[in-house]
């Protein structure tokens, strides 16, 4: 028999269909936009491409793949943040917490299942959708360029497929780990506060404003920026991000996995989640 943890995760995906619908919708949009743009100006693109030096050619060829993947993954992480804010709150608003608590499922299992969704399930779903979209982008450009009589063989030769796919997987994994404390904090807010979303937004803004007024500094702003953007700076080689990440040499796992920011973040995530478990145990329906 599959355990209570499996079913606890499964039920989250039944409830929060935006977890896969939102990235899917964005993927569909990207694909339509790409097909439209390519079919309208394929000739110009082909002309520009052949006029460029080989190094720049690779940039242009890989760009749509990287862009499509980033937009989809970004959507995934935004959805994940919203998911966290709601995850332990809706069950209290609609009183269904009384049903969930009538089942032999511990609060620990419940909270961990809800934490797994943003940290693992959404990134994996978004990654799968990103890969599928890239495959479609590939197919569409092959068909369009073939129809124009372009030399696609030479073009594809410039596409570092394997390293692109691996770099993307790496990017997803480091972001999921880096964002873990943020997700855990949002989950904690969702169980600790009656109306978590406005509270989270207002407190982040208020903190920066207060600091600015009181001390004229903006360390809190820098800290928020670090926790949001940090994976980019910690997990990739400096300067790597000025161009599309397509080569494994652009990754810097050694630095990322020895970064105190990562480990302190994971410790904080564990603390937030353990407080969330304790609070969930005490929680009753709102109203």
């Amino acid at each position, binding site marked *: 028999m599959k355990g209570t943890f499996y079913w606890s995760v499964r039920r989250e995906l039944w*409830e929060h269909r935006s977890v896969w619908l939102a990235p899917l919708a964005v993927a569909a949009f990207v694909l339509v936009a790409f097909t439209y743009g390519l079919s309208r100006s394929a000739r110009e693109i082909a002309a520009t491409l052949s006029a460029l030096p080989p190094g720049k050619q690779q940039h242009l060829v890989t760009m749509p793949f990287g862009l499509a993947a980033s937009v989809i993954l970004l959507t995934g992480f935004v959805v994940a943040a919203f998911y966290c804010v709601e995850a332990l709150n809706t069950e209290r608003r609609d009183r269904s917490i009384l049903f969930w608590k009538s089942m032999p499922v511990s609060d620990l299992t419940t909270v961990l299942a809800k934490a797994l969704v943003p940290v693992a399930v959404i990134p994996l779903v978004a990654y799968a959708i990103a890969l599928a979209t890239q495959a479609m982008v590939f197919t569409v450009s092959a068909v369009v360029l073939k129809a124009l009589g372009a030399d696609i063989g030479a073009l594809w030769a410039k596409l570092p497929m394997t390293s692109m796919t691996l770099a993307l997987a790496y990017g997803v994994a480091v972001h999921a780990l880096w964002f873990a404390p943020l997700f855990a904090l949002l989950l904690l807010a969702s169980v600790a506060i009656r109306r978590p979303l406005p509270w989270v937004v207002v407190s982040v803004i208020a903190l920066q404003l207060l600091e600015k007024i009181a001390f004229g500094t903006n360390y809190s702003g820098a800290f928020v920026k670090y926790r949001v953007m940090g994976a980019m700076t910690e997990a990739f080689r400096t300067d790597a991000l000025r161009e599309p990440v397509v080569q494994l040499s652009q990754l810097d796992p050694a630095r990322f996995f020895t970064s105190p920011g990562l480990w302190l973040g994971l410790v904080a995530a564990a603390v937030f989640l353990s407080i969330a478990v304790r609070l969930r145990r005490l929680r009753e329906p709102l109203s």
Partner: protein
Amino acid sequence: MATIEARGLRKTYGATKALDGVDLEVGAGRILGLIGPNGAGKTTALNAILGLTPCEGELRVLGRDPWRAREALMREVCFIADVAVLPRWMKVSQALDYVAGVHPGFDRARAERFLARAALPSGKRIGKLSKGMVAQLHLAIVMAIDARLLVLDEPTLGLDILFRKHFYDTLLNDYYDGKRTVLVTTHQVEEIEHVLTDVAFIANGRVVLQSTMDAFETRFAAVVVRPEQAPQARALEPIQERLVLGRSVFLFDGRERAQLQALGEVRSPGIADIFIALMNRAGGTAERTA
């Protein structure tokens, strides 16, 4: 071992004493009605029994401390804490999948039989079902779980009378087997009276009376007293005297049947009547001492 053993349960919210030393013992196979006004501590007591809220005092449910072992306890305890707590976004079939997945004591085929009998569409979302259907779904799920204790907190609130009757009939005929324990609270006391084996009154955070229904019916009596005998009836210290359609009805606590029969027609009073009488008397005493 009793199913529920509670001694001196206390719980305060700020200055309010929700539970002020609740003692309660419920044996296996009993159907206990917990009766009390709003704010008497019924829900708090049930929440403590279900491990939803911590409280002071000694509490054992099926031998476990509910607050420390809710997860383990819920394998043997079912509860319907309210009408309409099933998640509205869930499909009926998903609800069955989920419970089948997490509950080792759930018999899915049995639940599906109940649902088929109630003509519940399994592909629909719970939010699209009528209130009565949601209650039926919850009942079907609960009845398909092999539990030793079932707790019902206002399970039929807001449902129409036909459905309420059907609810308790189904519970008695298809669920209750003489070994399971059922604990139920409701405002519609008259509707569950005939179902109960035991009754407990709760007021101001205390259990003021706990009795089997047999003992209850022997202890309390209502007498329609002939006007000329009213003074004699008053001499027996009734717990309540009231006029019903121009006739005096006296309620007595622990008087000999023979004595009462001399006064007029003796009837078994309803739980609600006795409850009101006892509450008024307690209120009156409090006023006099104040």
